[in-house]
């Protein structure tokens, strides 16, 4: 069953790529979309089969590559990530049909898109070092092509692609190093062999391998300080690709970290977890602060991806800290929280990126300060974006709240603990998660409020129309997933149990139990019922409505002008913009962010007392980029300049180099 589904997925992906290569422009988009959706559906079916049954799937293709074969191993940990991929990929593929019709419909893009979906689906399924690296590189290259999709009319895309290419290949280097050490030690490249051989590693080597994989996979997850590519690359890709990258591809960084650190290596000392936790805390704070102050919608969403991956890292790190001190059941809860967040994040971040794509194609702008009033013109986009916003702000009764609740429960019940580092870290972690939650609420009030409410702030926003039907289908499907995950998270209890059983170095047992509609945790006396919370809210709203708005008087509504401080005309220029909405919080966090603010005041020619125009510019520098990357780049450039002096184009000099090399080789290997 699993094998058949994976085969179907591969065939569908191949068909989609062929369709992208040979069909004419109009039908190309449709067939690529349909076949990609089919591929993702098949992958999702395989994942569901593994997560609900207790079987795993293995297959071997020994002669696929000259040096090593590819092994497929599909266990519960793989399946949960493939499921997350399917959740975002199926609606994104359908959405892509409408989105590409007037946008990125070129052959290259239409070939790269199914390849990206299939490779993201298959990275977790790889069961050997070679397989993992092969699918990983396929994923990196296809996504790079897609980031460049709109490069001819977008200069930003080129610089974004450069950053992305550099970071992704540096990360690949770290991953390859880590995996090669493991495979060398084990004497074989299948994960089974590696797992068996990892026990013989010295603690120091194991830690080096872990740190290398943390760097490699952390860069893919976009966590601080390896995040620099993320807020550049994700906004520049076509929106359904952004959804795929932010919702599913980024999560594979977490997959790799958990797979190598706590499955293949079998876990390590407490400080592994502490490092991951610290990175998670920094990423969550950094990501949400930058998202809060960003006025570019897609950039905001990209920064929020850094934040969410930070939260996932917090869960993984907490689990990694609990497990060595023997608190396995709590570690299971923390891991379950992370995995649920990965699934939820795929749903709501995918949804929000698709929504941002609809806005972009309807208005041509991503600048929040130029949007507004879209709720009337784009009701479907508005409603679905609202669901995504409430979900990502972790508000009940939507799905983000369930994972946030699980994460908080696992952090809160860590005390009393024997390890000093746990006792010190957990209060800080709870505070950061709380602040992140509050700031996320503010961020998405800003994003939704300035995009969809009040009056349009530009002509383009005033003339927007609802997106084509296929795009709406994608949006509605993903918001349906969000709602389903919100109301019935209890359905995920047994899958999460299988996942935690698959990660031997971290967790065991059943993290979450269900008691009817209640979620209950192992070892923790706490309960939650998202379904009943939602029901309670709905019942109370209906009750209030029944009591208050029953009379005829209340059914007839009178439209009146808004109060304009005595002015009769209210214009869009009087509205709060996204920038002004975030200004109080920007002032609160001034010392952390150091924004550069320029205010130019043009005075009237006649008198200094009359102001003609005020220009306000705010730029927030990425502290890491400024302090860490630019100096590194400067060093690299100096090296490059040095190299250029050696390589000056003279054929004689090159021949002289060959001669010197030959002599050196002869002398050394004498």
């Amino acid at each position, binding site marked *: 069953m699993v094998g058949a589904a994976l085969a179907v997925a591969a065939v569908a992906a191949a068909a989609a790529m062929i369709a992208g290569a040979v069909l004419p422009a109009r039908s190309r988009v449709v067939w690529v979309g349909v076949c990609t959706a089919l591929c993702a559906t098949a992958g999702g079916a395989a994942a569901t089969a593994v997560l609900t049954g207790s079987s795993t799937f293995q297959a071997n293709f020994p002669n696929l590559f000259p040096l090593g074969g590819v092994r497929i191993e599909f266990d519960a940990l793989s399946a949960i990530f493939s499921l997350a991929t399917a959740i975002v990929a199926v609606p994104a593929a359908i959405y892509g049909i409408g989105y590409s019709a007037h946008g990125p419909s070129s052959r290259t893009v239409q070939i790269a898109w199914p390849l990206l979906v299939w490779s993201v689906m298959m990275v977790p399924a790889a069961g050997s070092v070679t397989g993992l690296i092969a699918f990983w590189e396929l994923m990196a290259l296809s996504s790079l092509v897609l980031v460049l999709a709109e490069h001819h009319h977008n200069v930003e895309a080129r610089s974004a692609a450069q950053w992305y290419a550099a970071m992704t290949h540096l990360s690949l280097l770290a991953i390859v190093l880590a995996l090669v050490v493991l495979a060398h030690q084990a004497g074989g490249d299948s994960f089974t062999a590696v797992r068996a051989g990892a026990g013989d590693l010295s603690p120091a080597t194991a830690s080096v391998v872990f740190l290398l994989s943390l760097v490699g996979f952390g860069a893919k997850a976009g966590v601080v300080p390896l995040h620099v590519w993320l807020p550049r690359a994700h906004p520049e890709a076509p929106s359904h690709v952004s959804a795929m990258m932010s919702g599913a591809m980024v999560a594979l960084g977490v997959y790799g970290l958990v797979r190598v650190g706590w499955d293949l290596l079998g876990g390590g000392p407490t400080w592994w977890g502490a490092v991951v936790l610290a990175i998670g805390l920094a990423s969550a704070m950094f990501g949400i602060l930058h998202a809060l102050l960003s006025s570019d919608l897609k950039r905001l969403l990209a920064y929020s991806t850094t934040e969410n991956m930070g939260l996932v890292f917090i869960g993984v790190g907490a689990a990694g800290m609990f497990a060595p001190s023997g608190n396995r059941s709590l570690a299971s809860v923390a891991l379950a929280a992370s995995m649920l967040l990965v699934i939820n994040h795929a749903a709501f971040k995918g949804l929000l990126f698709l929504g941002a794509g609809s806005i972009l194609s309807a208005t041509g702008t991503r600048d929040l300060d130029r949007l*507004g*009033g879209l*709720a009337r013109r784009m009701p479907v986009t508005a409603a679905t974006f609202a669901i995504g916003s*409430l979900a990502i702000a972790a508000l*009940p009764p939507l799905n983000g709240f369930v994972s*946030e*609740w699980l994460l*908080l*429960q696992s952090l*809160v*019940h860590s*005390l009393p603990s024997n390890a000093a580092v746990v006792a010190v870290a*957990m*209060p800080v972690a*709870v*505070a950061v*998660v*709380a*602040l992140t*939650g*509050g700031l996320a*609420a*503010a961020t998405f*009030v800003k994003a939704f*409020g*300035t995009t969809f*409410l009040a009056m349009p702030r530009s002509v383009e926003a005033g003339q927007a129309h609802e997106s084509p039907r296929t795009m709406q289908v994608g949006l509605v499907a993903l918001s349906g997933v969000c709602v389903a995950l919100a109301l019935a998270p209890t359905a995920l209890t047994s899958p999460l149990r299988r996942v935690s059983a698959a990660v031997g170095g971290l967790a065991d047992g059943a993290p979450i139990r269900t008691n009817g509609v*209640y979620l209950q945790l192992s070892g923790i*006396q*706490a*309960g*939650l019922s998202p379904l*009943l*919370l939602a029901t*309670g*809210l709905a019942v*109370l*709203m209906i009750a*209030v*409505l029944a009591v*208050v*708005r029953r009379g005829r*008087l209340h059914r*007839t*509504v009178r*439209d*009146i*002008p*808004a*109060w304009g401080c005595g002015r009769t005309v*209210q214009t*869009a220029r*009087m509205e*709060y913009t996204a920038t*002004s*909405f975030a200004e*109080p*919080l920007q*002032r*609160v966090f001034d010392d952390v962010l150091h924004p550069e603010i320029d205010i130019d005041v043009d005075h009237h020619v006649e008198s200094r007392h009359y102001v003609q125009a005020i220009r306000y510019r705010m730029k927030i520098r990425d502290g890491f980029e400024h302090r860490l990357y630019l100096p590194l780049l400067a060093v690299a450039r100096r090296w490059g300049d040095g190299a250029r002096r050696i390589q000056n184009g003279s054929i004689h000099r090159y021949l002289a180099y060959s001669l010197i090399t030959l002599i050196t080789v002869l002398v050394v290997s004498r």
Partner: protein
Amino acid sequence: MSPTGIAVAVLQVILTIAVAPLLVGMMRVIRARLEGRVGAPIRQPWRDLRKLLRKQRMVSQNTGVVFSIAPLVLLASAALVAGIVPFLSTTSALDQVGDLFAIVYLLLLGTVFLSLAGLDAGTAFGGMGSSREMTIAAIAEPTLLVAIFALSVSTGSSNLGAIVADTLANPSKAASPASMLAFSALAVVTIAETGRIPVDNPSTHLELTMIHEAMILEYSGPDLALVELAAHLRLVVFLGLLANLFFPWGIATTAQPLHLLAAAGAVTVKLIVLAAVIAAAEVFIAKVRLFRVPELLAASFVLAFLAVTVSFFLV
């Protein structure tokens, strides 16, 4: 979920809604008396609400669905919380449905909807109010959750019923440094979240200093009544949390009518005492500048943080 549990929850919701405006009326009377005024009678807030409910709905142009449903969500979330918080009895059916974290996020849901409604009309004041409200809500969040952390460390659960039962079983806990620190932290947050002096002034009519009032400037008639009632209810919910989490004596552990009656009396007395203290304190305190509010909340965060450290190390 037993029928009596549901009955207790419904009873709590109805009683708190009935009491909330009266409590606010009482606070206004106390304040007026201390300032040397006579003040309006205690039932004045109810009269205002009744008057507003009889008026026609008027909605400003440009607004949409969010503006219309925000009062409903706000009131429903506050009422749901009133059903979860053990006002009368620990046997409420909603006790297992949500814990303290759920309460915090439910209240945040109401705040978020009201802020969106403030943006919906497109006026400068609405946006200003929303922006400030979300600022305060965001930086109050760490204090709230860390205070909950402190409470649940000593109990081993973040469930309200469990915390109350634990304090009832070990009365000495109420006087421990951890619980006193957590109480002070939550008290500061209560003031910030319910828009009282020194964070916001509920009776101001100067737009530039307003937070909550600026946000709801466009509401009138029955919608305004809902928003006002929800604001009163949130105050009672926060005070009830403070009262029964830290001083749970008198609360019923069964659902027998007599016990419930006694519990109602006890919680009323506690609410009156807390409200009177706040009202009296407001006479002597000046509102602080908006950008000094983070200092206040940082102090409350420190209190909550100390509560966690102390509860772990001093037990």
